[in-house]
């Protein structure tokens, strides 16, 4: 487990999550209006 969570791998996971949130947030804010009637 300790060998899996190397510093480099953790940094990549955190970066990927941050990018995912940044990409998903505006898209979700726009798309939610198509779900309400």
């Amino acid at each position: 487990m300790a060998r899996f969570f190397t510093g480099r791998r953790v940094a990549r996971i955190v970066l990927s999550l941050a990018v995912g949130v940044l990409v998903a947030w505006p898209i979700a804010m726009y798309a939610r209006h198509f779900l309400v009637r």
Partner: protein
Amino acid sequence: MRALKIVLKVLAGLVIAPWVLIGVLFIWWNVRRPPSFATPAVLKHENSVAVAAGKDLRTQHLSNTDLVDYRGSLFLIHARTKWHLEDRNGALVVQRSADAKAWEEVARITVPGTDVRDPKFAVIGGRLFLYFLPNTEFDPSPKTTYWSVSDDGVHWQEPREVDGIWLPDGKGGWTLSKSWNYWRPKTRDGRTWYMLASGPLPGAARRVSVLIRSTDGLRWEMVSPVWTVFGNGEPEMEFQGDGSIIACLRCGSLGTGGYEFGNATGNTVIAVAKPPYLEWSTAHSFITRLDGSTMFTVGGRIFAAGRNHLGPRADLGNHLATKRTAIYEVKRDRLVHLFDLPSSGDTAYTGVVIRGDDVYVSYYSPPVGKDLPWIAAICFQPRTDIRMSRFSATGLLAVADAAAAGAASAAPKGD
């Protein structure tokens, strides 16, 4: 294989990077602080939320206001939709108040299955007329007008489409022209009503503005085209003391194109005509494109409440820029910016009532604790409140005098 991986990574980066940039911008737009919106004390300016948006996604975008003093009450009308774009479940909501502080919803006006916007009141023959624009396009572009009428502001006739505008046919008769957007009727004598409308004038390249008149609020005939060189709309007018009409037209550009990211020639066309209003002289103000304006008179001087694009600027109208609702003095050759009302993002589309020394201005804005750009408030974070400003008419004249004195002292001196 290694080269292919690099190419794929670069391509993925190119796709993702703009979205990351947009996400970062949204964070910045949500954390940056708005300006103070402090106004000179002489205005005695009070500002508050008249109708709060609430948190229901279906009805959180309150917009497009107008205001009228009718039978002793103030009537406010506004659109209520889920966002700025087409909403077929949208409605126009009429609110009533005695003091412009506590508002009571008294009527809801809809056209089934149709987006409705840009309501305008007019008291014609003692009856409260309402003109508004139905929209059938996702990116709103209304191309006709509906009307209704009430005798108490509470009970309204079923909305109907206007017949159209009667244009001179060149042979001494009249021909009916459809697809016109009416703006705000005004009268000087209580008998003949004048209004500016924008639409497809034969021979003009784009939708342009014309002056029309009526004696009953139903049959409107064209008096004259106002300005047809480039497309324009949302035309507002006011009578001046000498009987002439002064108008402000929203003009997207002087032929230079550019819409989403604005352009340097977006402007307000200021047009003036003396009776019988057949010939117009025009000037351009590049400090803003006065969207959704209301013109009004205080002390014989003409003012306007409308959208401030924070110009002049090379990208006037940029969707990524913030906007304000602002008060201007309208001169025959220019607009003079006086002060901003608390506002940001998608804002303006004002209504004005003057009672004694109090000037009431209705408009809409996202919550003013943030400084959102226009695009964010259109379809991403479209929660907007109806706000009400009240300030002193006497104070407004003092502020306008101070602005004129400041301009005079800053102007180059002759020998």
